[in-house]
């Protein structure tokens, strides 16, 4: 099993090139602190620098979110049709099924060839797994999960057309 | 005779059965439970006599019947403790069983005349009370350990409470009952501590045998042990005095005597039972029962003797100014039990028990006689309204006279012999011990007062001219009254024969039966004999000239004083129209009439000390205890509303709080565990 390197080795790696014996005693957290400091200081520095050198011309089109671009309309908190989620969920189910099927398929021949496992041991569990998923799919189908539901206005316009 | 003892439990069981029967079926029984009571006490008497005979034949009985709990003792001495119910029948308890059951039997018979014939209501309750009283006392008498004795001692106290308050619809009876209960309970409180102390010290509460606390205490003193930070003898004295608290309360010794005169509010038959054989006798009997323990402590004995002598005189002086016939008898009881304590306190074990026996007979006689007088007088108790009953009620008169002569200590009535022996024992010890001498002197002076008040009572009641209508036309009394009186009258006259010690010593004849009896000539439990106690006693005795001379001096002195007291009473009151002579007492009169303000100071103690203390305790309870309880609940509810506020209902807050809580835990544990 993969293992992280022990602490001590890690610190020597970071401190490659330094011969001072004290450095190896340095606390690991200093490095993390430094990283955080640098990570924060780069964006802050950029903002400060741009603030210092840019000209300031307060004007309506300059203050728009997307200068010279799309004109924003409304908020992002709008309702999506539930059907998107239904389809996404079903997709995830089959996605996972596939993820499990691939490695199984890879070892299937070897398993059959080995004397320890027969057809039942190699094929049975996967059939059971797929069967359970099939039951789920069948249930979803029967209860109308894949039917494209209509909003009230759509339904109303449908009747109008007829 | 060995088989006899297996029936010992029946002695106490009979009255208990009578109690149950009277309580449940009394209402429908012809004599409202009296028959059951008489049958039960007769049975107890017969069995007690059988036990007496068995002991006389040389057997004793000491058996544990039931162990109700046992455990590892954390005592100073001994390991493991058992609490049991057991029976100890030795010469002392066998004798006491007979006395108690005899008196109880006679009281039951007398009650037929005193209660049934007078048409009292609530009789089943009365007979149930008597039955339970007799049961408790009998079980107390043959208890083989201190704890069992304590339990029945308490039961005796409860029964006296019930019976003193029998006429609970009056104002005075319930109050007297409460007083009796509270005062004796105060003493019993010390008794209880004493029992616990003895159990905790010696890991045993048995009276007899090698594993008794007496034997353990003796060993501890001999080994020079230190018990609870005291040397063994001091500790024995302390525990002995604690137990003595119960004794003083029950036996109405100074300063716990105040309940007894008030207890006259109960039926006279109950007074007879309380004074002669049960309640009051229980205290002195307990001292006799654990005499070996007190014998180890000269200090405790001296205190017993002094308190006894003082009480004898103190109560006798109060008796001389009372007008109520029962009050006089009440104070005489206190005084006589003072003598018994004096006798036991000077090491006169035989003398004390002897007087206990004689007193049981003559005091029962006097109370029943007084009961008869009260019947004759249509329930009038004031002696100044009596007079001239001598001719109209000869049986009552002569038996009462016998009792009075015994009480006053006139030779040859039983009281003389026992009282004389007590005083003699006190004298010979007192010659070397000034404290005992003082006690003796008080006891001796009390003889004079005893003679005086006794005969004042006799003359006012029976002699002279009738001073009221009731006295002129007395109510007749029946056989149920006369039979007990005659029986006890004979006993009051002859019971002294049991131990004619002075005669024996002067004439050199061996007629001290009781001494032999208590010394285990016939049969005894080892260690519980007079001579065994004698070895433990530290008293030196002295004589005036020779032993015979000392006996004669002692007897002569007490007789002289008794006669002079009686004679003074004869001179003052044996006249056709006696008048009160109290004013001659001068300034002392008020003090004595008010019983030396004993009640007043006890009431003052209760009002001035106990009441403020309990008020303060109540205030503490109300404010500090209740306050903290209420405070806690208020704080809890306040805390609750605060905790409740954490739950805002906004899920983002929850997530934030969860993360914050998790980080708090992480920081705490991380720092604690040195993860960083």
């Amino acid at each position, binding site marked *: *099993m993969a293992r992280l390197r022990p602490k001590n080795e890690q610190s020597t790696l970071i401190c490659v090139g330094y011969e001072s014996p004290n450095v190896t005693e340095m606390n690991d957290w200093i490095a993390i602190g430094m990283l955080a400091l640098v990570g924060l200081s780069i964006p802050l520095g950029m903002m400060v620098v741009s603030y210092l050198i840019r000209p300031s011309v307060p004007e309506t089109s300059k203050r728009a979110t997307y200068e010279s671009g799309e004109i924003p309309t409304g908020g992002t908190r709008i309702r999506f049709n539930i059907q998107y989620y239904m389809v996404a969920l079903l997709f995830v189910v089959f996605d996972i099924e596939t993820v499990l099927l691939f490695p199984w398929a890879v070892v299937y021949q070897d398993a059959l060839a080995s004397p320890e496992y027969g057809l039942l041991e190699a094929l049975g569990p996967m059939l059971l797994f797929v069967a359970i998923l099939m*039951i789920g799919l069948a249930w979803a189908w029967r*209860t109308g999960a894949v039917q494209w539901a209509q909003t009230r206005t759509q339904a109303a316009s449908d009747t109008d057309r007829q | 005779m060995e088989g006899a003892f297996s029936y010992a439990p029946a002695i106490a069981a009979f009255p208990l059965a009578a109690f149950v029967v009277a309580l449940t079926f009394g209402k429908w029984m012809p004599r409202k439970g009296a028959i059951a009571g008489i049958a039960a006490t007769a049975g107890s008497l017969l069995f007690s006599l059988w036990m007496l005979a068995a002991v006389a034949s040389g057997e004793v009985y000491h058996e544990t019947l039931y162990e109700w709990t046992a455990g590892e003792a954390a005592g100073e001495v001994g390991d493991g403790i058992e609490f049991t119910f057991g029976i100890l029948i030795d010469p002392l308890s066998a004798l006491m069983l007979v006395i108690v059951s005899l008196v109880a039997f006679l009281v039951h018979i007398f009650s037929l005349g005193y209660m049934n014939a007078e048409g009292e209501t609530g009789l089943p309750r009365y007979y149930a009370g008597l039955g339970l009283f007799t049961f408790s006392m009998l079980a107390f008498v043959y208890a083989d350990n201190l704890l069992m004795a304590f339990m029945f001692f308490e039961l005796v106290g409860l029964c006296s409470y019930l019976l003193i308050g029998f006429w609970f619809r009056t104002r005075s009876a319930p109050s007297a009952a409460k007083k009796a209960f509270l005062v004796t309970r105060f003493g019993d409180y010390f008794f209880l501590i004493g029992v616990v102390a003895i159990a905790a010290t010696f890991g045993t509460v048995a009276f007899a045998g090698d594993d008794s606390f007496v034997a353990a205490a003796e060993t501890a003193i001999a080994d020079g042990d230190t018990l609870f930070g005291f040397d063994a003898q001091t500790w024995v004295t302390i525990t002995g005095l604690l137990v003595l608290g119960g004794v003083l309360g029950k036996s109405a010794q100074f300063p716990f005597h105040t309940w007894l005169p008030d207890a006259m509010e109960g039926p006279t038959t109950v007074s007879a039972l309380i004074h002669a054989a049960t309640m009051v006798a229980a205290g002195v009997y307990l001292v006799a029962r654990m005499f070996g323990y007190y014998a180890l402590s000269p200090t405790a004995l001296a205190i017993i003797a002094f308190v006894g002598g003082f009480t004898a005189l103190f109560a006798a002086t109060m008796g001389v100014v009372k007008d109520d016939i029962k009050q006089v008898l009440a104070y005489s009881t206190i005084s006589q039990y003072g003598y018994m304590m004096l006798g036991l306190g000077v090491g006169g074990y035989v003398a004390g028990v002897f007087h206990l026996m004689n007193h049981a007979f003559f005091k029962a006689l006097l109370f029943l006689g007084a009961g008869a007088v009260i019947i004759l007088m249509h329930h009038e108790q004031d002696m100044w309204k009596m007079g001239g009953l001598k001719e109209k009620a000869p049986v009552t008169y002569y038996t009462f006279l016998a009792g009075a002569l015994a009480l006053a200590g006139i030779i040859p009535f039983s009281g003389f012999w026992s009282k004389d022996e007590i005083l003699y024992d006190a004298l010979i010890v007192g010659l070397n011990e000034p404290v005992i001498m003082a006690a003796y002197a008080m006891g001796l002076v009390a003889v004079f007062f005893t003679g005086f008040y006794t005969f004042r009572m006799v003359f006012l009641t029976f002699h002279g001219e009738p001073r009221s209508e009731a006295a002129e036309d007395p109510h007749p009394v029946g056989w149920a009254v006369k039979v007990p009186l005659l029986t006890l009258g004979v006993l009051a006259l002859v019971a002294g024969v049991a131990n004619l010690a002075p005669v024996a010593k002067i004439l050199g004849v061996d007629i001290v039966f009781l001494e032999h009896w208590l010394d285990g000539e016939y049969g005894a439990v080892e260690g519980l004999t007079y001579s065994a106690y004698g070895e433990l006693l530290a008293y030196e005795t002295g004589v005036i000239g020779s032993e015979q001379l000392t006996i004669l001096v002692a007897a002569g002195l007490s007789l002289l004083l008794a006669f002079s007291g009686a004679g003074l009473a004869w001179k003052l009151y044996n006249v056709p129209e006696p008048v009160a002579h109290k004013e001659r007492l001068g300034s002392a009169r008020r003090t004595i009439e008010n019983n030396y303000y004993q009640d007043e100071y006890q009431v003052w103690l209760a009002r001035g000390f106990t009441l403020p203390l309990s008020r303060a305790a109540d205030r503490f309870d109300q404010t500090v205890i209740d306050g903290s309880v209420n405070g806690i609940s208020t704080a809890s509810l306040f805390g609750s509303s605060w905790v409740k506020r*954490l739950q805002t209902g906004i899920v983002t807050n929850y997530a934030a709080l969860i993360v914050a809580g998790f980080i708090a835990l*992480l920081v705490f*544990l991380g720092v604690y565990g040195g993860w960083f």
Partner: protein
Amino acid sequence: MAVFQLAEWTAMAPALILAGTALALFVFDSISPHSTNRSLLAGTAAGGALASLAVAVWFIVAGVGTPTVDGGLGEITVLSDQFVVDQMALYFMIIVAIVTALIVVASYDYLVGHAYQAEYYSLVVLAATGMSMMAAANSLVTIFIALELASLPSYALVAILKDNRGSVEAGLKYFLIGALSSAIFLYGISLVYGATGHLQLDNIAEVIAAGDADPYGGLLGLGILMLIGGFAFKTASVPFHFWAPDAYEGAPAPISGFLSSASKAAGFVILFRVFTEAFPLGDQMNALIGFDWTVAFIILAIVTMTVGNFAAATQNNVKRMLAYSSIGHAGYALIGVAGLSADGGELVMGAAMMHLLVYGFMNTGAFLFVALAEHWGVGRTFEDYNGLSRQAPIACAAMAVFMFSLAGIPPFGGFFSKFFLFMGALEASAANTAMLAVAAALVVNSALSLYYYSRLVKALWIEEPATTRDRLARPTGLYAAIVVAAVMTVLILPGFGPVVDAALDAAVAALG
């Protein structure tokens, strides 16, 4: 009783039976969607739960899990040690099956007129499957999968009253907090794996014992703490308890009972198993993470019982009060882990297991009474419950039994389990004096809890009804479940001997 002749995987039968029942319900619903054949649906679910119960009892009687030296069959491992069926697993499978059966029977009446009946039952049974698997899971992966299998249907169940805003809101809150907790838990698993290189509990213990994890003390400690977070969510312990009051209040009452009894018990079984199997106390372990991990549980136990009981004290809504009381009881059960020590703790852990069993009856019963009240439509607050005993004396008597048992009043079952917990805590204080504080907190909180439990009894039995009510219905299923729960709460006293034995045996085996 020849259990051992069956294949090894059949040892998981109690969970498999539940899984099969759930699938059967799904199949039925696929064939006949939106069925309202309540008898068939509830009957199938109840049958599955009872079959699972019967098999689990049979196994435990036949000696599965009893060490072979004692004449038992030993613990049975399934799927290369991914699952282990021992006494503790069977004990908790029994609890789960009992609660599931009670809930299903009670739901028969509760669900009258509701949509999604088949889904409801199949989700209940599916969640029960997850809980049953949690009882036997022996590796961090199977633990996580089982935990999610139990959690996901629970989210749906809480929100199953789709037209009820409270129910939907509760479901969403439960789901969000659940997702957060799962994330923390999963991160914890990854850290433990990083530090030790193993997911299987006994292998983790071996690595720690061999000293191979020594360089990663802080990493492992953080991982363990995150695992604790996951368990705390499942058992509704502070600070992961925030979902509980809202979810219990909004959920259908039988589901509240199910979550607060069975789900909590399942959370505790993995807690017990992980900490006794993977991180057994000892000098090695203490040196590794710097302290004795019972410290964390001592803190959690005290804080959880205090927060739960204090918050319950002033609630006006009965269901919410019960929700907080269930948090308080999680605190009591945590004593079972807090009192462990390197060479002991069977008594205190056994006591916690007993408490969870008794709690399964009394708490489920209490929530079912609330379900009954919702069924009657009498309202939700204490005042609304005033004087209900006039119309429904039997149910109210049962409720009084539940309340007094929850408060720990003798002679009900709750007293004995609490008493054992207290004794166990005192015994554990010999090794760890902080347990005295836990014992004290137990006593103080029990005293406080009596206040609000008896308030409800007072409302039911003493107060005058605020409004006049019509005659109340007597739904058979709900009544039956409540009465059974009450009878068991009382009868568990004479029958306590076997329960004590079973719990102690299981604890000894788990610690051994």
